[in-house]
């Protein structure tokens, strides 16, 4: 499973070219899942749990989701999470 290095993440709005450049691959997978019509909370948390590890966190899903939400890269719209492109 890929480890997320928060310090290595770019700041600022997410563009498609930024998304393409992101590492690890699991992070791109999560953000891609929020495109199209978005993804429901349960499947998103499951996808994060399956795709990404977060060093120092045994339960990585919640802090990773918080980081992506704080950056404005994932936003909640009703029952769905959507990837927000700047």
């Amino acid at each position: 499973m890929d480890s997320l290095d928060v310090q290595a993440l770019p700041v600022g709005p997410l563009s498609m070219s930024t998304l393409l450049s992101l590492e690890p691959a699991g992070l791109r997978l999560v953000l891609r899942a929020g495109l199209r019509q978005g993804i429901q909370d349960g499947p998103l948390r499951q996808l994060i749990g399956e795709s990404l590890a977060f060093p120092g966190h045994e339960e990585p899903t919640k802090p990773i989701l918080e980081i992506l939400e704080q950056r404005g890269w994932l936003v909640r719209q009703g029952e769905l999470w959507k990837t927000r492109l700047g």
Partner: protein
Amino acid sequence: MVKILAVHSFRGGTGKSNLSANLAVSLARLGKRVAVVDTDLASPGVHVLFGFAPQAGQSTLNDYLQGPSAIHDCAYEVTPAEVKASHGNVWLVPASMNGDRIARLLREGYQVERLNDALFELSEKLRLDFVLVDTHPGINEETLLSTAIADCLLVVMRPDSQDYLGTAVAIEVAERLDVPSIRMVVNKLPDSFDSEQVREKVARSYEVPIGALLPLSDDLLTLASGGLAVLRFPDHPWSQGVSELAGDLSRSLV
């Protein structure tokens, strides 16, 4: 649920728009409800194949991306008469051919996220089976988005050394974006080329399934984008190749 087909090439002149239009009609002949969206905003052209030209007051994709128009007001039914008996439909979302509008779009840009939303809003409104996104050649924000949201990426190339190199980039991008399905389409294959050798070279180069090998055709050149080959020359190997690709996509994606 709608399937998004992104029709892309790394270089221009591969016949991408021609393939998009003919593939849309081929899918409609299978009874599918299909929209073609021209996201080649800098050099639009797929409307010509349908004999459609936006008139004054008719909205285009530009009016949705940079204005107040609803996306369904930018879609026009262009179902050919020959297709109606199959109960399929084709809609076209053209891009503006007005030079000032193209310049404004390039100058001011737009929120690329609106393009994502447009495809799914339109799909719901028109109850579409397929959306074909005719992309701009090369890599930019729109093509990356179209690739990322595609259920299947069709990468169109000619058997040309520059195309081989550029196509490798397009495939690499698609793989980084985890596109669920990719098909290679080799177009404009000269008679003098050994099609099996080309097939092997493409397969070896990209390790991606080949959707179609389509011949370079004098008949298509004569048509000069003034019509749809699958209707005008249905028995031509090019048309048959496109029809077979439509059948393959229809079976494997739906």
